[in-house]
């Protein structure tokens, strides 16, 4: 029942319009790049200063000075460009990127996102570029398991974890469904195979619209 991580990434990839500039977060969002349909041209931005990020290189072609935001080795496509951090975040904060795909700890019914800290004592807080991405990118998509590994709902009325941003998530791709978030509420766009609306509602704290 439900979608695998790869299928979740495929679902998001199929929704990216041709010609989009896209920033992919660390984790499942990174898989999106592998599943963009043929004939669609997407330019990937990585916050550490590269527009036109290409696939992971083989070992012989690694460069420790060519990495992505997750500090993994990447390549640059023909037509790529490098820039410094203030320019990179001008792209992010100035509204120049079309889509940001992020992971989540919690998403609330009005589109609040918590994805940077559990707020637990002893945890080392680290935010990176997440708050800038959600504040500045036109469309914010979240890819996440619908329920956490320890069985806690991730789609909630109000986020208990510290917020990354308020009212900024436009769409959630979970292993159970694709859900659009708007002023009307949480609308289910597609259910994963074998998932009923009633089951999805049981796994979600806010009231969903069928």
């Amino acid at each position, binding site marked *: 029942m439900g979608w695998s991580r790869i299928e979740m990434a495929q679902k998001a990839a199929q929704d990216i319009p041709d010609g989009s500039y896209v920033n992919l977060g660390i984790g499942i969002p990174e898989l999106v790049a592998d599943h963009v349909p043929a004939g669609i041209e997407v330019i990937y931005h990585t916050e550490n200063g590269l527009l036109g990020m290409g696939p992971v290189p083989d070992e012989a072609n690694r460069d420790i000075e060519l990495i992505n935001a997750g500090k993994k080795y990447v390549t640059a496509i023909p037509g790529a460009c490098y820039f410094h951090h203030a320019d990179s975040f001008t792209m992010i904060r100035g509204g120049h990127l079309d889509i940001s795909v992020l992971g989540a700890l919690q998403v609330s019914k009005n589109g609040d996102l918590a994805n940077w800290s559990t707020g637990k004592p002893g945890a080392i807080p680290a935010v990176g570029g997440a708050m800038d991405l959600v504040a*500045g990118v036109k469309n914010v998509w979240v890819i996440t398991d619908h329920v956490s590994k320890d069985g806690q709902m991730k789609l909630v009325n109000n986020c208990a974890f510290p917020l990354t941003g308020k009212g900024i998530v436009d769409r959630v791709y979970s292993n159970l469904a694709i859900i659009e978030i708007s002023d009307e509420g949480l609308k289910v766009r597609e259910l994963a195979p074998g998932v009923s609306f009633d089951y999805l509602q049981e796994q979600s704290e806010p009231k969903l619209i069928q």
Partner: protein
Amino acid sequence: MINKLVKSDAEAVSDIFDGATVMIGGFGEAGSPIELIHRLIDRGAKDLTVVSNNTGSGNVGLAALIENRQVRKMICSFPRTAGSVVFPELYRAGEIELELVPQGTLAERIRAGGAGIPAFFTPSSVNTPLADGKETRDFNGQTYVMEYGIRADFSLVKCHTADRYGNLTYHRTARNFGPIMCTAAETTIVQAKHIVEPGAIDPEVVVTPGIFVNRVVHIADPAHESILVANQERYPS
């Protein structure tokens, strides 16, 4: 005659003083000026406030500077990189301060500092704990938080090619914070893999104009942090 080239990395950092604010370039190991950091460890200046995106990995470079108890406070966006052990331990023990800043706000604070802009408003971090206690203002119906520009006493930056005027180019994603940090310090100190004659860098491709740079030292074969970490090396050894 203008000649910003200095003879050694030790000489380049020889006036970094106790209590200084030091910007250190790099995103992870890409662009981290590891030789300059090691000479700063040799020098021993302490009570430093360090502005850098991360806190280093293993027991070399920035992590070693922290481990050597020279850093009183870190201003950064992501203090726990893979392989980062030194900072988390000291932070949990309450022995180092952390000012956590969203990465774009960090970049803009440095850019603003370099441009003589004391403060600015941004939507990043509004309604989050990182905006707590900060002044906010509404523009066109949206709330923004005020953030201050940062200036440093010193910036330590790694580049690819430099000339004696201090004109710089960088290599791939090692550019990251380097160009903005060069603008924001009283004294900007750069390690360059290649030194060329003035004019050899096409003026159209200069990334950091030499006016922002005070000292350049030639480090032809810089160490790779990830290789030192994989070999479990420490500094000082």
